[in-house]
């Protein structure tokens, strides 16, 4: 037991190192940086390059990578990205940092190549010195991690609380205007905070080299597990985060004594951080009188397609031409490209669930992929193992996802913004580790088979028939979503986005509205997930990994989270684009699609409404200039509130 606790303290210190950097960045910039781990990994690679490849001494490699490159990266990130994000809505901030975390790993491959690195050495070099701590031998790397975690927790805590620099940093974040009135150059201060934040990310990266190697997957997973510690510290307190991380490590390490072993339970221990995270989120928010951050979080900072700004004739023409092209696609496009597009349309159905929850409800859910997974597994279970007709099983996939949606909705009532995102992310990891780790559904990584649906004696076997089927399903849900906007419930969400409190005081039930939305979006995601699996022929675990859900969110927000058309486009781009690069360009371009999607998400800092809105307005402007006509002003449709960026009053058009 003592040995396990000591092992747990070491693991906990590793979590602490990563969580402390996250919290510090959050305290000093109000941005929860999903890319924190990716930045750490990048700096770790630099250290490896200097120390191991170029044989620089450890101190020189450490100084250049941690003290020079780390802060420099922070400065660049701040100048290019986070400076613009400080006032953006939480959704946009989150999507942009997720975008950054998507971009960094392929960039690392481009810069450092793909050579395998097995056991890179860290700050302790190849020292083999051991210290006996209560009967457990610890090496220099482990002792360093524990020691530095303590120093960072205490040092940075003191810095923030008692030094002028720390106080200025906090003031600049809490109230930039007041801080500026006091003569503080807030830009300079936040830039400084970012430099410190990414110095810490780099320090964590280099410190963790001996434990994580330079494996992208492990690195990012370890950082995500450490989110639990940051949540325990309420994103504020460095000492509490530190203690939380230690508790997390010890619980995870000692849980081996209590958790059942066996093929059914392989994912249980991986769940520990996420169970802890959900528990803490529920407890913290239960006693809080009001969901914090509401006004800011409610605001997506993004509106739907400015559909009413087009002249009715033009709009009709665009829709007719677009509709004809889409319907005629099987005539224009053949072979596997049509298959990719059909798959993209099913993904578009899943993305419509984001249109509901994020676009309409202004809530950030990272659990949509889990609803899709539940839908897909239900379809597999019922159709393949229980012998149901596939079409019915796919529909059941949507229905079964609903109670899970409600399950999340209940605690989520009191979560807002970042906490909602983290809570749903934890749920996604739980589904990932529990459901898909069941041998029944995992089948050694092969997943469970889901056939193509049939209608009478007709089977949707061909790409063409499946394409139309997916399109019909998409169209039906799309029309419902569009119609929903002008119903009382839809308008109610407009009101909730504006002010939850005002809506409640007018006698509307926010709770019921949110429950409806979560249930609806879970249904859509479940149905889409089942359809998606049916096209692929199976529901495989890797397809529905929680980390893929992060990328989905970044993609849909990039293209446009409130538009039905954007959902379709995002789905199709997601499946077609990588194959285009693979087919027409050489292997050297294989990482480009990921980089482009990431850059798109980062681009949200400039255009929070998504690429589609931006593209349509640009095209319209160009057309107007070309025809010499007057441009129709960019204005939201009557009755729809304009929500440009957070913290601003909403404005209805006259």
């Amino acid at each position, binding site marked *: 037991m003592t*040995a*396990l606790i000591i*092992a747990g303290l070491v*693991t906990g210190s*590793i979590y602490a190192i990563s969580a402390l950097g996250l919290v510090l960045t959050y305290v000093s910039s109000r941005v929860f940086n999903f890319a924190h781990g990716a930045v750490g990994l990048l700096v770790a690679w630099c250290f490896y390059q200097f120390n191991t490849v170029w044989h620089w001494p450890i101190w020189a490699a450490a100084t250049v990578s941690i003290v020079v490159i780390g802060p420099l990266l922070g400065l660049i990130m701040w100048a290019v990205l986070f400076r613009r994000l400080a006032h953006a809505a939480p959704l946009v901030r989150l999507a942009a940092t997720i975008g950054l975390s998507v971009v960094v790993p392929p960039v690392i491959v481009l810069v450092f190549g*793909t050579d*395998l690195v097995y*056991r890179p050495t860290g700050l302790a070099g*190849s020292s083999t010195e051991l210290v006996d701590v209560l009967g*457990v*031998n610890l*090496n220099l790397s482990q002792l360093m991690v524990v020691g530095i975690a303590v120093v960072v927790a205490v040092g940075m805590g003191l810095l923030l609380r008692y030094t002028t620099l720390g106080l200025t940093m906090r003031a600049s974040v809490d109230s930039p205007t007041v801080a500026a009135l006091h003569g503080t150059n807030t830009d300079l201060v936040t830039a400084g905070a970012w430099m410190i934040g990414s110095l810490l990310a780099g320090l964590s990266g280099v410190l*963790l080299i001996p*434990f*994580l*190697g330079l*494996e*992208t997957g*492990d690195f990012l997973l370890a950082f995500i*597990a450490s989110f639990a510690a940051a949540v325990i510290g309420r994103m504020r307190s460095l000492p509490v985060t530190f203690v939380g991380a230690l508790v997390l490590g010890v619980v*995870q390490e000692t849980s*081996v004594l209590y958790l059942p*072993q066996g*093929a059914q*339970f*392989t*994912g249980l*221990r*991986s769940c*520990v951080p996420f169970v802890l995270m959900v528990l803490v989120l529920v407890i913290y928010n239960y006693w809080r009188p009001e969901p914090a951050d509401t006004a800011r979080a409610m605001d997506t900072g993004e509106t739907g397609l400015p559909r009413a700004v087009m002249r009715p004739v033009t709009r009709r023409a665009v829709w007719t031409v677009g509709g004809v092209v889409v319907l005629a696609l099987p005539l224009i496009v*053949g*072979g*596997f*490209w049509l298959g990719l597009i059909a*798959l993209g349309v099913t993904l578009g159905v899943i993305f419509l669930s984001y249109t509901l929850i994020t676009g309409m409800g202004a809530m950030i859910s990272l659990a949509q992929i889990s609803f899709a997974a539940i839908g897909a597994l239900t379809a597999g279970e019922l159709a393949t193992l229980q012998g149901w007709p596939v079409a019915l099983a796919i529909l059941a996939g949507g229905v079964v996802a609903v109670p899970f949606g409600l399950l999340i909705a209940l605690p989520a009532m009191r979560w807002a913004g970042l906490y909602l995102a983290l809570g749903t992310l934890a749920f996604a990891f739980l589904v990932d580790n529990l459901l898909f*780790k069941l*041998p029944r559904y*995992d*089948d050694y*990584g092969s997943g469970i088979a889901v056939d193509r649906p049939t209608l009478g004696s007709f089977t949707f076997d061909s790409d063409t028939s499946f394409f139309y089927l997916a399109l019909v399903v998409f169209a039906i849900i799309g029309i419902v979503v569009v119609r929903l906007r002008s119903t009382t419930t839809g308008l109610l969400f407009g009101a909730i986005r504006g002010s939850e409190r005002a809506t409640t005081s007018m006698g509307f039930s926010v709770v019921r509205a949110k429950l409806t939305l979560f249930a609806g979006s879970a249904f859509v995601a479940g149905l889409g997930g089942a359809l998606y699996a049916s096209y692929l*022929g*199976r529901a*495989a675990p*890797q*397809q529905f990994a929680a980390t893929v859900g992060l990328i989905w969110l970044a993609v849909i927000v990039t293209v446009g989270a409130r538009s039905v058309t954007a959902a379709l486009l995002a789905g199709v781009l997601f499946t077609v684009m990588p194959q*285009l690069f693979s*087919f027409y360009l050489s*292997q050297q371009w294989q990482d480009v699609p990921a980089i*482009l999607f990431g*850059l798109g998400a*980062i681009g949200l800092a*400039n*255009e929070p409404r998504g*690429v589609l809105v931006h*593209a349509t307005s*640009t095209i319209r402007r160009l057309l107007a200039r070309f025809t010499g006509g007057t441009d129709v*002003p*960019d204005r939201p449709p009557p009755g729809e509130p304009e929500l*440009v960026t957070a913290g601003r*009053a909403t404005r209805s058009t006259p």
Partner: protein
Amino acid sequence: MSPKKWSEDVSHTITGRSTRLGILAMAACLTAATAAACAGGGSAANGGGSCSSDGVSASEIQLGAITSLSGANGPAFSPFADGVKARIEAQDAEGGVGGRKLVLSTSDDGSDVGRNLAAARELVEGRDVLGIMEGSSFAQGGGDYLKRQGLAVTGYAINQEFEKNANFIGYSNIQPGASSSTATTRLWGTYLQQHGATTVYAVGSGTPQGARAATALVASAKAVGLREGVLTTDLPAGTTDYTGEAQKAKQAGVDALALPLTPAQSLAVIAAMRQAGVAPKVSLLLSGYDPAILKSGSSIEGISFVVPFAPFELGLPAHKTFADAMAKYTDNGRSGQFSMAGWLSADLMIAGIKGAGSCPTRDNVLSTIQGLRGYTADGLVPSTDFGPATHGTPPTCSYFVTIKNDAFVPDNAGKPICTTDTSPVTF
């Protein structure tokens, strides 16, 4: 701050460079998508010559390779593509097969199941290939599709598809992992026993596959009379520190390690064991036989590896041919487990095409491979009779190497080590 007007927002974003970049890229993609679609839809079997079938024309034979060049598995698996390329180019340098040049298209599955299917379809429908060489942990994505197509898929049999589907054929017919989906053999236990093991430690990553591999190693050990020390099947994803594992092993009196983990994880486990004072007589790694591991800097003396082909250290003529071709036809010329797997997969495909006569088709190439007897890939694999008897079964013989003085030294004087009792061990 006064609220910005909508129009100001738009004009602001028009100058936003990164957004513009994104839009340009997407617009370019959409244009390209249409063009691609037209081209893709119009492709048909190459005509010409008296004999033409899918992927075969008078002068060329189209072949495809699928592996993970990008994504999580990219770094480990991309050498597979190099190995395939080297073997194909070397064959073309000798004039191809039957006067036809072999043309290779490689498709990246991005470490993703969905993209694996797309890659398979791209090769079958877009490139109209005669056969496919595949090395990917995500082969289940295109598995059902390729099974329906019925063309030969040779490859690195690390995936269940190579056990389930008759047209998926591992380069030595068996599958090289710890067990098949139903059983293991006494081979692993035999090897550990030969090195004086009595109490075995095995750990699997926290996935059902990892758990099964670890359990199989323990079952194999128990089948030859060894004792189970510790069996951990729920290692958390992204585990960073193995101090706890080492403590458990120490208390159980473990003297042998059997590790079906990634090489980096295995080395970390071994380091943690040494640190805790566990001194195993044998540490067997199921993967990691790669020259790069010798430069890892950590203490690797005495670690043993399973090698699913004749180890490079034997210096056979075929090894030299391989190394020369890798140096000549690939960018980094890296020799290792994955590049050799690619080379062998292509070699088996070429053997199938050669044996199919003057008019190779998808059908006769597959049946030729299934009928190969005494195939050795110039001595790189033990003599193999293809066909259903050993298709996708766990190995009863394998090469092993052990690190001595920072070099791989083949065990058993370079001959494969076998188990005498070849009956399956179920668990």
